[in-house]
Every structure is written in structure tokens, then in C-alpha cells.
């Protein structure tokens, strides 16, 4: 699949050149403005900058990419408002994968299946994309990565495709090599636990949650205690992962715990037979959540408030209050920037911890982050064609390589296979490894109801109001009722 993709791309670009020449002689260039809803952050900023620098319409159009940069915290509300109000403002939209169902069923996101099939360049791109990303970012109704893989060469029959990766994201471990590779700490850890404190990437390959918990206990220091070669200037903590009430800031990590132990969330691909009760609150899932909760007290005190979101842990890490954290790759750049981070020169990256199986291997299944971008349904054929030209430009290996060099991630296997890719950013190796393990949360239109209720219950558990069992029972009951009402469970 990978080779074929690479073979097809040059051929396709030749056709593209010919088409461009033909277009130029026909001299029927149009002025096209593509307005794109985009969260305001570097990956989309880069897309805009690079577009202005290097995009040339193969059809000879005079194309403008007009990005509507919307602040992340209000991005969902703004996009939802625009779509449901019918203002038909955007031609393209960067979207969280979970919103696919809501806005496909609302009739706002364009089904691209036939266009992808008819266009050899797009077909080549789809075949070159990592199957996890096709599964999470493009299919609706949702197909799992396994289903995408099992279907063989793209396209699978009876599957509908909508999106392309704008910024694929996974979580990895951020750690302080000045502490983890410190000789004194190494020795103390060895003395205490009889195990090696992870220092190199290879060491981190062996870290599971049991080890992670030990790290959390080990690096818990009071103000004035020795820390590394120095003393702690403030209370210091070993670990942090997301445990926040907002948006999906606990679900993303809890899902990983559940999946790694062989548990499951409600499986939308098994609709309408797949149940919520008995699955969501299975003993395995409860044990997984208990394990997740058992590490919360080891984290900085804000975790007790249920506000340890992905940004709070990043700030704590950057201000030198935590030894290691699990967080999105997309939040990595500021960690390496001395302007925002006090640990910019001592940070290193590894794969996120996982669960050790009976055979000794570690299962690192995680919940994918990042965003695809999609087209909307109200555009003229001319605009759709040009928007797809923009897609092809963005997913050209050349553009993707530049993106990766500027802190982005590529979803193309051909780009990731390039040895240069690993060296572009320090977390790329970990990201690539983690990408193999990703799954996604639900994509159905009821997504937000399920998520909000679940976040509330998890938050109660994180803040110690209820236990894991009680939380998951309540989640299961709510999901069962909601999904039965929606006709998704029979």
C-alpha cells in the first residue's frame, strides 16, 4: 500500500502539470475565495502562511485561502453556530473528529467518497494515509482502524469518507532528562525499587503504569528537599496526566486505561446490537478507572479540583513543578521555547506509558487527538474542485515535510517513512510509535451528550465524591438510555 502510494504520486503530479498547462491556455481563470474555519494555533497558522507562499492553483484560478482563525476555547461553539444557523460561510472547516457525526447528519459536511474515488491523486493520498487517521478522521459512520485495514486497499465498499488530516496528534511522555538521567536520582530509585529509573528513549519503551506510579511516588518532594543536584524551590511532583472536567480532558486518558486492559467504551461500530450497560461499566473498566484514579493524588494539587486539563499540566511542567507528564504532541513547541518554558533545554520525549500484558509486551492503546479538515455541502462544483486542489497541495509530501519541520505532524506514511522525519522534532519518534496504537472516541451526533455526562461523572470520581464503580454505572445507565432513545441500541 505504501509503495503504491509513492509510485502513484509522481505520475499524478505529471497529470497535474499537464492539466495546469491546459487550464492556462484555456485562460478561464476564476477568482475563488475559500473561507476556512480554523482554530487559532500554529498548525493552522502555518497552513495559511505556507499557502500564501507556495500555493498555485493547477486550474489557473486566482485562489485565496481566507482563514477565519477562531480562538480554541470557543472554536466549537463558533463552528456549531455558523453551521446550524445556515449562514453557509465556510467552504472548509477544521474539525475535531468527534464532531463528524453531528455535522454530517446535519447535512453540513460534504461526502467526498465519490470524488476521492474518481480522482487518482486523491486516491493515492488516501492510500498513503495512515489507516488510523482514515478511521478516525474520515469515516462516518465510523469504521475502526482494524476494519479499515481489513478492507484491504482503499477504498472499502460501502464506507463514506469525509475528512483529511490537518494535524494528527497523539499523546506522548514529556520528561526532564536532568532528573531522570541524574546519577543520584538513578541510584536512589534503584535502591528503593530495584529497578532502573528510565532515562533514554529505550528505557521509556518499558515504562508501564505501575512504573509510572512509582515515578510519581519517587519524585514527590517537599519544598527544600533535595532534587537532582539541587534542592526543590517549591513542592515538586513526579507525574501528571489529564484529569480535567472541561471538554474531553479526562476521557481522552481514561479511555486509554480502559482499552489497554481489554475493556471497551460503547462501540458505535456495533450499532444497534452493541450495549452500553455491562460494557461501559464492566469489571475490567472499573478496575482501569480505579487505577487511573489511584495516581491522581500523586499529581500537583490542582488535580484535586478536577481542573488538571491539558494546558494546566503543560504549565506545571514548563514551570518546573513536575518531573514527567503525558500530553499531546501538539503542545510540545512551547515546552522547547525558553520564552515560555523553564525546562526548554532539559526536556526529552518518550512513548506514553501503557499496560503490561501477560506476555510481557506493553499495550499503549490511546485516544487519538488532532483534527481533520472537511469540505462543506453548499459549494459550487468549481469551489469544490479548487478546495480539493488545496487538499492535494496540503497533503503533498513536500508541503507535509515543511509542516513537520515547523512543528506539525504528517499523516502520510510515505512522509513518516522518510528517515529525516524522525529528526525534525524531538517527539516525532514517539509520535510515530504512538500512532500505531490510536483509537477514537464516538463520532455519533449524540457525542456531546455522552461526553459531557461522562466528564461530569469522571470529575466526581477525580474529586473524590464517588468511586469508580459508581461513576461508570451512572455513565453506562445514561448512555444506555440516551442511545436507546436515539435508536442506536435496540
Amino acid at each position, binding site marked *: 500500500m505504501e509503495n503504491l502510494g509513492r509510485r502513484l504520486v509522481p505520475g499524478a503530479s505529471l497529470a497535474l502539470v499537464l492539466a495546469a498547462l491546459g487550464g492556462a491556455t484555456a485562460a478561464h481563470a476564476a477568482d475563488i475565495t475559500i473561507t476556512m474555519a480554523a482554530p487559532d494555533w500554529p498548525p493552522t497558522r502555518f497552513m495559511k502562511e505556507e499557502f500564501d507562499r507556495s500555493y498555485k492553483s493547477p486550474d489557473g484560478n486566482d485562489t485565496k485561502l481566507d482563514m477565519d482563525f477562531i480562538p480554541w476555547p470557543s472554536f*466549537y*461553539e463558533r463552528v*456549531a*453556530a455558523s*453551521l*446550524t444557523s445556515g449562514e453557509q460561510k465556510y467552504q472548509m472547516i477544521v474539525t475535531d473528529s468527534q464532531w463528524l457525526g*453531528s*455535522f454530517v*447528519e*446535519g*447535512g453540513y459536511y460534504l461526502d467526498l467518497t465519490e470524488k476521492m474515488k474518481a480522482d487518482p491523486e486523491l486516491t493515492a493520498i488516501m492510500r498513503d494515509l495512515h489507516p488510523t487517521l482514515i478511521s478516525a478522521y474520515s469515516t462516518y459512520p465510523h469504521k475502526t482502524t482494524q476494519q479499515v485495514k481489513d478492507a484491504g486497499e482503499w477504498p472499502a465498499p460501502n464506507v463514506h469518507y469525509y475528512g483529511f488530516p490537518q494535524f494528527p496528534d497523539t499523546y506522548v511522555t514529556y520528561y526532564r532528562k536532568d532528573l531522570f538521567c541524574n546519577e543520584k536520582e538513578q541510584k536512589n530509585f534503584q535502591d528503593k525499587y530495584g529497578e532502573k529509573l528510565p532515562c533514554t528513549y529505550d528505557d521509556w519503551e518499558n515504562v508501564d503504569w505501575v512504573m509510572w506510579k512509582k515515578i510519581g511516588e519517587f519524585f514527590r518532594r517537599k519544598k527544600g528537599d533535595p532534587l537532582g543536584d539541587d534542592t526543590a524551590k*517549591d*513542592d515538586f511532583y513526579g507525574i501528571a496526566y489529564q484529569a480535567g*472536567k*472541561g471538554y474531553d480532558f479526562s476521557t481522552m486518558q481514561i479511555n486509554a486505561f480502559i482499552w489497554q486492559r481489554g475493556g471497551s467504551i460503547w462501540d458505535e461500530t456495533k450499532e444497534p446490537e452493541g450495549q452500553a450497560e455491562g460494557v461501559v461499566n464492566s469489571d475490567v473498566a472499573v478496575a482501569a478507572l480505579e487505577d487511573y484514579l489511584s495516581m491522581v493524588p500523586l499529581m*500537583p*494539587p*490542582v488535580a*484535586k*479540583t*478536577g*481542573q488538571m486539563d491539558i494546558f494546566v499540566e503543560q*504549565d*506545571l511542567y514548563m*514551570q518546573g*513543578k513536575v518531573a514527567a507528564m503525558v500530553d499531546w504532541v501538539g503542545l510540545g513547541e512551547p515546552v522547547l521555547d525558553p520564552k515560555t518554558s523553564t525546562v526548554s533545554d532539559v526536556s526529552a520525549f518518550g512513548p506514553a506509558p501503557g499496560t503490561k500484558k501477560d506476555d510481557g509486551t506493553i499495550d499503549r492503546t490511546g485516544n487519538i487527538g488532532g483534527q481533520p479538515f472537511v469540505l462543506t455541502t453548499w459549494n459550487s462544483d468549481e469551489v469544490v474542485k479548487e478546495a480539493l486542489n488545496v487538499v492535494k497541495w496540503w497533503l503533498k509530501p513536500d508541503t507535509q515535510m515543511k509542516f513537520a519541520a515547523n512543528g506539525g505532524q504528517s499523516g502520510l506514511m510515505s512522509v513518516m517513512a522518510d528517515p529525516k522525519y524522525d529528526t525534525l522534532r524531538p517527539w516525532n519518534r514517539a509520535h510515530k510509535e504512538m500512532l500505531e496504537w490510536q483509537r477514537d472516541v464516538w463520532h455519533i*451526533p*449524540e457525542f*456531546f*451528550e455522552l461526553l*459531557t455526562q461522562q466528564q*461530569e*461523572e469522571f*470529575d*466526581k470520581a*477525580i*474529586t473524590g*465524591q*464517588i468511586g469508580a464503580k459508581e461513576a461508570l454505572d451512572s455513565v453506562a445507565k445514561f448512555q444506555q438510555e440516551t442511545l436507546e432513545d436515539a435508536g442506536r441500541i435496540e
Partner: protein
Amino acid sequence: MAATSPDLRADAGAAPANGGFLGWFLAPERRGALLVTPALAVLFIMNIFPLLWSFGLSFFNFRANRQGVPDFVGLRFYERVLTDDDVWQRFQTTAVIVGSSVVLQLIIGFLLALMFAKEFPLRRILLMLVLTPMMLSFVSVGVFFKFYYEPTFGLVSWVVNHFTDERFVMLATPAGAIAGIVVADAWMWSPFVMLLVLAGLVSVPRYLYEAAEIDRASWWRRFSTITFPYIKSLLLLAVLFRTIETFKLFDVVYIITSGGPGTSTETIAVYVYRMAFQFFRTSQASALAYIVLFVVIVLTSLYLYAVRRRAEEVS
């Protein structure tokens, strides 16, 4: 209560000597209606019409993220909302937050007003310092108070940590989270109460105090017999005004706690927002919104009743 002497003016307006277009336009029999019309028209278009629309919507099963024609479901959503335990829990939360915030605003506002009810150097400038919180956006107040409460970096926690062994983690419990919201809201809006009370305090005739001094009345007696009667109704106004305003509290809650821990600080405003914009239960949200509106109208009536009674007392 109708105007007692409009006759003279009406006659003057109707006199042909005062003609001209404006005179005709403002002819007595229609000028009142004409002058009122533009304002009412804007209100009708932007406020009342949309409200009627959603009132209609609340009887259908409509979701903004689904296609197709909505079914008529009658009162089903009202029934569902009124029998929903979650809704009652949100109303209770809102009542607790509104109640404690308004009381705190009254106390602080009253004390601040006492301070400023004198003439002294730099009064105008110092008054501005106290008024500034009102001019901030809800968003920035929310963000910075959350920052002040943060257990590792926060100012409040840093101060309290000097007196406790344990880290001070304000927002970890439902009570603490409610307190966090209430303090931020009360800080922001106490100046409003202050201005109201101040308006009352400065209106107390000075000679009453002078007379009290001659009688050597105690502080409490002076307060209860002279000051309080003058500010009593104003305090009542402040209570109702702030109750109605605090009922709308949204951004501060959403930012400081996002409704947590669990759902313990989720106010009714946050709940409606979630239902409408995240769950796309458009019709159900409309039904709930109408119940909220009903509560607000009751409060408004109380407010006006209080105002009227005050008017009668004075006249």
C-alpha cells in the same frame, strides 16, 4: 397612575399656529404612539419575535443538527424539564450561588458606600478604583480569579499556604468551588450595590443627624431611625436587581469551575447553554428557557412591586 395635567400641553400641540410637519406628526392623538413605535419595533424584532418563535419551537421536536421536519410534541418537553431531577438540582445550585453572592454584595456594597458617603480629598479618584471591577469583562474576571485560586501558582493559595500545613486547594470541594465563584461575582458587582446605597445615603438630610447628635442618640439608634429608612427601599432594589442579574451568571462559572466538581456549580444558565449548543436539544432547551423566563418575570414583578410600594411610601 396617569398623568394629571396633560391637557394644557395637548391643546398647545394641536393649535394650528404650531403646525408644520412635525406638529402634524406629533398631533396629540398619535404622537405618543408614534414616538414609542421605533423603540418597540426594535424590541419586537430583536427580542419579542424571537421569543415567540422559540415558544412555538418548544412544542416541536427540533434539533439544529438534524435534518427533516420537526414533529409536534405538545407539552412533552415542558413535562420532561419539570420532572427532571437534574433541572431542579441546577435551580438549587443557582439559588445557592445567587443567594450567597447577593448577600455578600449587599454587605460589601453597604460598607463601601458608608466609606464614600463623605466629602474628602481624592474621593473621585478613589471611587474609580472601587468601580473598576464592574468594567472588566466576565471572561477576564473568571480567568484571573481561577488563576488566583490555583493551588501551585495562585496568589490566594500562596497567602493561605503561609498559615496551613496542607496546600490550600480552594476549588476541590463543592463548597469551595461555590465560594470561589461567589467571591469573584461579589467582588465584581459589589460596586453596583455601593452606588445604589450611596445614592440613598447622600440623600439623608443632614439636619436629622444634627438633631440626633443633640439627643445623644446611640450609633445604632441613629442608624435604625434615620439612615435605614432612607436606604431601606434602595437595599430592596439592590437585592432584586442583583438577584436578577446574578441569575444570568454564565461566563464566570464556566471559566472558574466549568460546573465542577461534578455538577455542583453548574448553574441553570450553564445548563441551558449545554443543552442548546452542545446537545442540540433545541426544543427542550427552549422549553427550559421559558421556565427560566417565567422565574425571571416573577422576580421582575416583585421588583416593580417593591418600587411601587416605595413610591407610595414617599408620596
